């Protein structure tokens, strides 16, 4: 795409703000799935989007903010055959400054946690992370074909 096409480089979309708490994330997901662009997705793409968004947002709640709390901003835009997503928070940085590897779980261990980043990595594409001026920013593309 042309580099001077500002709209393509930063597609128009919708942004949400929510408190960094699990109940606020649930309410936020409810709100965003009732409105475009998420409301227009196929049932399969919608399910995939909800899994990834819930995991990313709840990871911020549990690990970036913990008990401290704070605000999460999430922006969504249809872009390049997918749904471009971007979260921002002012919580703790990612360990070692990078996204967790999401090692595939061993079912035999019957662990009660550690599935979140594996699910994110299985379903999202083009995952990116940056921390600038105390703001964590996670970006990813969700497929629209499921």
């Amino acid at each position: 795409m042309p580099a001077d096409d500002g709209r393509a480089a930063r597609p128009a979309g919708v942004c949400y703000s929510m408190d960094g708490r699990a109940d606020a994330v649930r309410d936020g997901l409810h709100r965003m799935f009732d409105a475009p662009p998420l409301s227009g997705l196929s049932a399969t793409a919608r399910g995939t989007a909800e899994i990834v968004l819930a995991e990313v947002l709840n990871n911020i709640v549990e690990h970036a903010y913990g008990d401290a709390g704070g605000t999460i901003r999430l922006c969504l835009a249809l872009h390049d055959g997918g749904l471009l997503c971007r979260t921002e928070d002012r919580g703790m940085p990612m360990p070692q400054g990078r996204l967790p590897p999401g090692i595939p779980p061993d079912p035999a261990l019957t662990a009660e946690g550690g599935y979140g980043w594996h699910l994110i990595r299985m379903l999202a594409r083009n995952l990116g992370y940056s921390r600038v001026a105390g703001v964590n920013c996670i970006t990813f593309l969700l497929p629209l074909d499921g």
Partner: protein
Amino acid sequence: MALKSEIRGDVLVIRAEQARIDAAGAISFKEAMRDVAAVPAPRVILDLSQVTFLDSSGLGAVVAVMKHLAPARRLELAGLTPTVEKVFRLTRMDSVFTIHPSLDQGLGHAGG
């Protein structure tokens, strides 16, 4: 956390009556499950047909309940909706649980 339970023959059937088992509700789900599963019955089937969304916290809670019942009893699942089924499949936890397409099929099943 809305759970409804009944004894059907030798099976304790527990129906989750909420649409989500997620990070905001995983702990209360786990606690409520432990309470209703205290009823003695050789088999326990959790009917998830009304649950449209389950995240990794919800999955962890279901695994915790399974471990709580073991080794005397095995937790079986029934009626996974598409997004819930996807979470079990992608984490390969579908290989750990006995999963019935529906509660009726689970009740007709010999168990285990």
